[in-house]
């Protein structure tokens, strides 16, 4: 049995400790907001927060996540998360939307550490999140918008 703390709740899982956290979330806990895009830490659709930092659920083994605070898109709370989600909705960033959970998780990490990011800061911090629909112009704008709302 592996005990994970996800979105503030302890969960018992009887799974292979080498299973990537992504599949534990999606297949065993029905937390499907975190997405499978590449399985190889290339795309960012898998982004969750582990101990407050953006992390790759597809390349984190369940066994290594034990005892750490895991937050998924479903468990977001707080000022920064609210500002980011509101900005995303205000600017209608999404198209297909599949990558956007991961984009939002990464944007929250960025804004938690950097209150007023420049375009260069955003490019550097969000580089690991692919959006195949190409919504990057609005992602940049929405991060600026959220920063403004938080100021």
């Amino acid at each position, binding site marked *: 049995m592996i005990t994970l703390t996800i979105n503030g709740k302890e969960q018992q899982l009887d799974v292979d400790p080498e299973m990537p956290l992504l599949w534990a979330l999606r297949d065993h806990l029905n937390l499907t907001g975190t997405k499978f895009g590449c399985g190889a830490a290339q795309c960012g659709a898998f982004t969750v927060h582990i101990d407050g930092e953006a992390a790759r659920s597809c390349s984190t083994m369940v066994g290594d996540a034990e005892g750490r605070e895991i937050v998924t898109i479903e468990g977001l709370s707080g000022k920064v998360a609210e500002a980011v989600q509101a900005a995303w909705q205000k600017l209608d960033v*999404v198209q297909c939307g599949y990558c956007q959970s991961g984009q939002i998780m990464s944007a929250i990490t960025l804004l938690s550490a950097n209150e007023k990011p420049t375009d260069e800061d955003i490019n550097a911090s969000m580089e690991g999140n692919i*959006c195949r629909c190409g919504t990057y112009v609005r992602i940049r704008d929405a991060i600026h918008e959220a920063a403004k709302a938080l100021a």
Partner: protein
Amino acid sequence: MLIQNSQAIAPSRRSFLKGAGLSTSVFVLGSFVPFGRFAAAEGEAAAPAPAAAVFDPNMFLRIGSDDSVVVLCKHLEMGQGVSTGLATLVAEELDADWSKVGFDFAPNNPKVYNNLFFGSYIGTGGSTSMANSWNQMRQVGAAARAMFVAAAAKQWNVPAAEITVANAVLAHASGKSARFGELVEAAMQETVPTAVTLKDPKDWKYIGQPLPRLDSKGKTTGTATFAIDFRRPGMLTALVRRAPQFGATVKSIDDSDARKIKGVVDVVQIPSGIAVLANDTWAAMRGRDALKITWDNSLAETRSSDALVAEYRDLAATPGIVAANRGDAALGLGKASQSYEAEFTFPFLAHAPMEPLNCTIELTPDGAEIWAGSQFQSIDDYAVGQVLGVTPDKIRIHTLLGGGSFGRRANPMADWAVEAAQIAKAIGGKAPVHLLWTREDDIKGGYYRPMALHKVKAGVDEAGRIAGWQHTIVSKSIMIGTALEPMTVKDGVDATSVEGVSDTPYGIENLAVHVHNAKTAIPVLWWRSVGHSHTAHVMETTMDELAHLAGQDPLAFRLSYLKEGSRDAAVLKHVAEKAKWGQEMPKGMGRGIAYHMSFGSRVAMVAEVSVEAGALKVNRVIAAVDCGVAINPDVIAAQVEGAIGFALSAVLRNRVTFAEGVVEQGNFDDYEPTRIKEMPAVEVHVVPSAEAPTGIGEPGLPPLAPAIGNAVFAATGKRLRSLPFDLELLA
């Protein structure tokens, strides 16, 4: 209160409403013969309603006692905003309250939900969704509105013409008013009007406004259900090991190690390979990795990319099938004072939507239910029916959000749906099956944008006019051999191989277009903007080169081949003005222009680039778009922004290549989409138009590559022709 089907008005040629049988009063408006081309719907109306009322196959619209309006979306929402667009049309004519409008996906009943441009097929593609629904969805809204007005007129005993409707509230000068929700039951009793008058455009409240997307909230909170998120009790996840070379088949298999993996439930063979079924994805992955398969590649494609290019080049040197012929290109070229000859190559490209292909299927006593991001429901249900030996009407498709597609989910071969059905059949339907393709499966799995090679000979005369233009295209046909061949291939010419060249709006007097249908086992498919994804680049690069040979400004040169006052010319002029065309650029920077029409829409772009020490940076792209009435200008802008981001990866680096028939790429490390740091600033200008709407999902893509290439030429004097650009040429 429950409205039973029996309370609906008796079906007739002119009307058939069906109650939804929900727990609250609901007004439903279904297909109505007078407004559509659904002659066949008459028989459907007489048929008994299905048991599950929410899937009433005749329904376009539900209005609840809480004023909620749910529009049944007959097209796949894959990011292009179609759910918001279709709902906008209904809400406009209904005078609904936008804050209470939502959507559901329509079931796969082709008699009601067919794409009016695709005959009897349900399907989303060719940027036709808004165009084919433009009148239909407005008529749905107008008919429903008329029925509410008629109901209110009766209750209030006033003339219908004196009743106004705004924001889902009906009102009369006498002071009487009612919400839609209060009149749902009464409106249901009204006859569907045989004709409706649509609003004058000056009275539009929603059409033309940047209404917020209906799918934004779910997609920003992790609650939206994509096909890959769907679960059935007892569902098994299936992964398939497919042959490394297209056309190879399984020779022998040892699955003993795979079956030992905890969680693996079964291993079955299907035509495309070996499927491993497991209780979860991780076990299926590990099980698949443990398979030992030998392949029979006697019929497989074993050539490498270089060999294919060489073969295409040889073909291009010979006369092909004539796709277009204006004037006499050879004679014209003979009179050219300066001429130009060039070759352009384009690689195979994977669509790589962010949500990998997947499909959930559950066999039922008489067919199957499918949950998928189905884009061509009428092909998917037919193909799955073929596998299971039943007719398409026995396959019920529940369409779910698609995490991108770019063409991949619409396959005339329905490959992924067919695989899912084959696996479900192979295990005797003992459990629901969720077929998942990994990213590697997707990149290596075929159905690519076909590789293409263009050869162009063109020249200008003493006066600087185009004297002649000979254009040869070599590409594998997308349509030949599919069910769509009769509709799209004429005398051996697949329109999707030559579109954008053979029908160029430029008034080139002497033009000859030839095509060769190359043969390879590598499966091909439309990829966002289809043939235009390569033809626009050749046309617009060549126009630029000819302008240069003629010593003319690239904008003025293009305009001189477009009709004065035409929409084409207007879009080009619009972008030139917005981009301040003609202004000097600093050293190392360049500005390039391109124009292309596709799917009935006209898009012109100016790209601004800088080239420093051999590195190319696209700084800004300014686009002007004429896609007819701009139903939602913000969605239009988003589609063009997105098309630029999507296209840029094909300009900069994407290619699927083969080494002895084996795909050399596999994931986002070696098939890397555009990343945020590469994304230019984008300005989209929508040119006002009163014409009927045309597509916007695809037309933003074609002009990008040539606009960038022409800008690089302006900055450096160097021509980049083949895609992806060989940036070493800039060093």
